[in-house]
C-alpha cells in the first residue's frame, strides 16, 4: 500500500500543495488566511460528500454532522473546559461518526431523493432541538474559547491555520488511500450498478454504511475546525438547511474529479461569498445563487474539470 501511495501522483500533489500553503500562510494577510482557513475546514465536509456523490448519493442534511461536530467542540469547551485541538477533534469526530453510524442503519436503505430528504429531516430535527433548548444556547448558540495545541496557547491564528491545513492534508490523503483500495473503488461500482455488486457477493448496504459514517466523521471534523476558527457556534450558521445546501453547492462546484477539489471548492466559495458580500451587501445571495446555476449549467463536473482541461491543453500544446 505504501509503495503504491508513494507512486500516487495525487498524494504527492496533496503533500506538496498543503505544505506550500502551510508555509505561505504565515505571510498572508489575516483575512486571506481566515478565508482559506474557513474554506479548508468546510472542504473536509465536502470531501465526505464527494465520496457519497461518487457513490451516487447526495445528502441534503449533512449540516447535521457539521453541526454535531461544531456543537461538540462548543459543549466540551463550555462544560468540561477542554480547549486542546486534538481532544476537541476526537470528541467531535467521535460524536458525529457515532450518530452517523446509528442513522446509517436506516439511511443505507435509501437512494436518490429519499436519501437526500431523510438526511434533511434528521438535520432539521437537530435544528428544532437546538433552537428551542435554552441550555444549548437556542437561536444564539454560544462562543467557543481559544484553541490550544497540547497545552500551548498560540498567540496568533497562524498555529490554528497550520493545524487546519495539516488536518485537511491528512483527511485528503486518507480519503485518497481509501479510494485507491478495492473497497474505495466500490464507490463508482455502486453508483453504476448496485445489483452487480450484490451479485458479486458484497453487501451494498454495508459499503454505503461505511462511506456514510466516513462522511459523517469528516463533516464532524469540518464543523469542529470551523467552530474553532470562528470561535462561535449557532444553529442558523451550523445546522439549518441552507448550510447543508451550501455544502452540496461546494461539492458540485468543486466537482468529483479529485480529493483536492473539495478544498479548492471550499476556498473559492469563501472568497466568492466575501466579495459578493462586499460588492453587494443587499444582494449577495444573487451572486452566489447565480454562480451555482452557472456551474451546474456550464461546468457540470465542477471547477476541477476546468483545471483538468487547462492542464490537458497545456500538455498537448507544449
Amino acid at each position, binding site marked *: 500500500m505504501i509503495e503504491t501511495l508513494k507512486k500516487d501522483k495525487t498524494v504527492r500533489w496533496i503533500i506538496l500543495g498543503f505544505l506550500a500553503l502551510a508555509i505561505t500562510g504565515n505571510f498572508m494577510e489575516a483575512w486571506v488566511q481566515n478565508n482559506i482557513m474557513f474554506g479548508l475546514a468546510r472542504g473536509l465536509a465536502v470531501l465526505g460528500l464527494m465520496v457519497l456523490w461518487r457513490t451516487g448519493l447526495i445528502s441534503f442534511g449533512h449540516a447535521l454532522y457539521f453541526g454535531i461536530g461544531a456543537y461538540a467542540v462548543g459543549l466540551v469547551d463550555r462544560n468540561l473546559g477542554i480547549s486542546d485541538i486534538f481532544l476537541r477533534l476526537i470528541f467531535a469526530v467521535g460524536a458525529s461518526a457515532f450518530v452517523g453510524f446509528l442513522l446509517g442503519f436506516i439511511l443505507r436503505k435509501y437512494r436518490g431523493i429519499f436519501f437526500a430528504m431523510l438526511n434533511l429531516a434528521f438535520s432539521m430535527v437537530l435544528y428544532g432541538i437546538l433552537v428551542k433548548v435554552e441550555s444549548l444556547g437556542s437561536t444564539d448558540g454560544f462562543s467557543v474559547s481559544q484553541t490550544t495545541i497540547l497545552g500551548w496557547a498560540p498567540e496568533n491564528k497562524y498555529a490554528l491555520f497550520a493545524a487546519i491545513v495539516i488536518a485537511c492534508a491528512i483527511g485528503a490523503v486518507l480519503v485518497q488511500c481509501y479510494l485507491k483500495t*478495492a*473497497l474505495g473503488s466500490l464507490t463508482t*461500482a455502486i453508483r453504476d*450498478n448496485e445489483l*452487480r455488486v450484490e*451479485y*458479486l457477493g458484497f453487501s451494498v448496504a454495508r459499503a454505503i454504511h461505511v462511506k456514510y459514517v466516513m462522511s459523517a466523521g469528516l463533516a464532524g471534523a469540518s464543523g469542529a475546525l470551523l467552530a474553532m476558527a470562528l470561535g462561535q457556534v449557532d444553529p442558523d450558521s451550523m445546522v439549518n438547511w441552507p448550510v447543508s445546501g451550501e455544502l452540496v453547492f461546494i461539492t458540485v462546484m468543486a466537482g468529483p474529479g479529485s480529493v483536492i477539489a473539495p478544498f479548492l471548492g471550499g476556498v473559492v466559495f469563501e472568497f466568492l461569498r466575501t466579495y459578493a458580500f462586499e460588492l453587494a451587501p443587499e444582494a449577495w445571495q444573487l451572486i452566489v445563487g447565480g454562480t451555482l446555476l452557472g456551474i451546474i449549467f456550464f461546468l457540470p463536473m465542477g471547477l476541477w474539470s476546468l483545471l483538468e482541461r487547462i492542464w490537458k491543453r497545456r500538455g498537448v500544446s507544449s
Partner: protein
Amino acid sequence: MTEVPALKVTDLCKSFSGIMAANNLNVEAADGEIIGIIGANGAGKTVFVNMITGYLKPTSGTIEFQGKDITGIEPRNATHVGVCRSFQVSQVFMTMTVEENLLTALSIAKQDGRAMLQSPRAPDLLIECERLMTLYKIVDHRNQVASTLSQGVRKLLDIAMAVVSNPKILLLDEPTSGVSVEEKFGIMDIVIQALKEQGATVLFVEHDMEIVERYVDRVLAFYQGEIICDAPPIEALRDPKVIEYVIGGDHALNTALSGGAGHA
C-alpha cells in the same frame, strides 16, 4: 450420480398478489450438467432464476445446493456459497473499462477483508484478470469503457464477471438476447467452452432453439409457472406440449428443427 445433486429444487412456488408465477417446481441438476430453460415470455423462467439466486423470495418450497438449504438467501450469500448468475440485460459497471470491471469484480470475489483494503490492481488480481479476458476473448477491449461496448462483448463481460468467484452453479439469463445473429454462436462457443473448463453446473434461459439444441444436456420447458417438460433436447423439442406452448406452431418447429439439424 449417487452423491447429492448440485441443485435440488422442491415444490417451489411464487405468487404475486394471487397470480402464480411459479407453481410446484421440482428440478434436480447434477454437477457439470448444462441445462436449457425455455418458455414463452411470462412463463416464469426469470422468476425461477431470480428465486434460486436470491433476488426473489419464494412463497413456499425449498432450494438446496449440494444438500444445503439456500431458500430465500440474500443474493450476495448465494454468490458466497457458489451460485452465481448473469443477466438478461448486462449488469456491468458502465463508466468503467473492461479491465476495471473485472478487477473490481475479482477483488470483491476474494471475500476477505485484507483484499478489500488493497489496491484492486494487485499483481495476483491482474494475472487473474488477464486470464479471464483471454478466456472470454475480450482482451482487445480491455481499455474500452463498458457503455461503449457492443451488446455481444458486454454480454461476455457480464458472464466473465459472474464467474470470477468460480461458482459451482451458474445461471445465465438469456445470454444471447440482444446479440446479433452472427455473434450468437461465437459467444456461446466461448462461454460454454470456458464454463466446461471450470466444471460448473450451468442453467441458462434461452429463446433460440438452435442454441438450446446445440449446447444443452437437458431442457426445462416452462409454461404459466409450471415445468411442462424436463427431458433431453431431442425429446423435449418434439414434445407436443412444448411445441404448442413454447415454440409455437409448425413453422417455428420446422425452423428450429431444420436449423438445429443443419448445425448438427
